[in-house]
């Protein structure tokens, strides 16, 4: 897993309180990791904080899995 992928995984584990082994690229935040709609908003905020970038609402709506987040951040991360 990329360095960014590892940081994404750490945030997801922390915020959703899930086992690290469940946080794989294909895992859906809502369907596989037990997040609700408010959790996903907070996750996006945590990604913004960690990676020093802004994730606009229309982009946030396309981030449904751990892999989606990693892919987006590999392109857009500023820190």
């Amino acid at each position, binding site marked *: 897993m990329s360095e960014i992928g590892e940081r994404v995984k750490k945030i997801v584990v922390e915020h959703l*309180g899930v086992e690290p082994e469940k946080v794989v690229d294909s895992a859906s935040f809502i369907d596989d990791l037990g997040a609700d709609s408010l959790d996903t908003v*907070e996750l996006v905020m945590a990604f913004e904080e960690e990676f020093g970038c802004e994730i606009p609402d229309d982009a946030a709506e396309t981030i449904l899995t751990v892999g989606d987040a990693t892919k987006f951040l590999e392109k857009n991360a500023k820190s």
Partner: protein
Amino acid sequence: MRRVVVTGLGMVTPLGCGVDATWTRILAGQSGAKKIDTFDVSDLPSQVACPVPRGDGSDGTFNADQWMEPKDQRKVDDFIIFAMGAAKQALDDANWHPQTEEDKCATGTLIGSGIGGLSGIADTAIVLKERGPRKVSPFFIPGRLINLASGYVSIEHGLKGPNHSVVTACSTGAHAIGDGARLIALGDADVMVAGGTESPICRIGMAGFCAARALSTGFNETPQKASRPYDKDRDGFVMGEGAGIVVLEEYEHAKKRGAKIYAEVIGYGLSGDAYHITSPSPDGDGGFRSMSAALKRAGLTAADLDYINAHGTSTQVGDEIELGAVERLLGNAASKVSMSSTKSATGHLLGAAGAIEAIFAILAIRDNVVPPTINLDNPSVQTAIDLVPHTSRKRDVNVALSNSFGFGGTNASVIVRRVT
């Protein structure tokens, strides 16, 4: 109307997590007060409080992880976590864990708070000002709303009956229990999880009550002496935190399932002062009328009372006004009644106060013992009423009344009686 009894108790208080820890320590005359060391108080006139003792859960300490998932704790203020703890204790104590749809729908939740998520509001206001609205958490609102204590508890335990809350400042806990009992009496529910919860010990909470000149300021170096109801040196209340929650149940429902019955809620009275936003009416008429209404509802006279858990916050004016109202109520029966202020030990839990104090009244009936008013070295007035100074007292207690009076001139009195 249907009869309502208490079948479960839960407490998170400055004296400990759990009914046993709290009751043992209060009967031993211990105080929950200490100098505040969790945030800067150097510029605050009042620097003492009664915090819930945090720890790993042993020896009566409160371990939030036992009551709520860590990932959910982050989303809410402490008043919700305290409520989760006290509600679980009460439901376990009552051995009531509804499984069928019918039982779930017959069980409601009515947990109030005076202020709710004060520290979360203060912290988020700073985030908003310094970093803008995009940094405000989606959990900001649901983690601060007062009725979310009821919300979280109902979700955790699957309680689908009335989902309600109370906000009446320092009368909240008493109103929650009284109103919860009414919902059962009128048939809206068979079981209610009712009480109050509060987490006001933070800089903005201290600053606000200091500004209102409500807090003790003269005992910053001797915190355990600061809460001293009826004593001539009292100079304000000591802020407390925690939760008190009871399981209320329709009498036949409780009997049928063989539940342990602590006491019956037989009286509940409410009144308004219509006088001032923070000061009680000097004639004490509001408190007098709320106690009188509770007695009328109970079908008793003042001479039937054995124990009164006073509102008694340790403020200059409030204590004597309440004492005057109680003397007026009791008349010639004053000398047979014991009245103590447990706030001398717990501090003032605001919206949770009425609930933990109703529980103390219930435990006084269970054990035939009344908890003390600690620090009562020199009463500021003479009275025929036994104010239970310093040490708890064994005595017969069959009927007990608990008073709660709040900002806004809101008064509530709850009467409980032994079920024989």
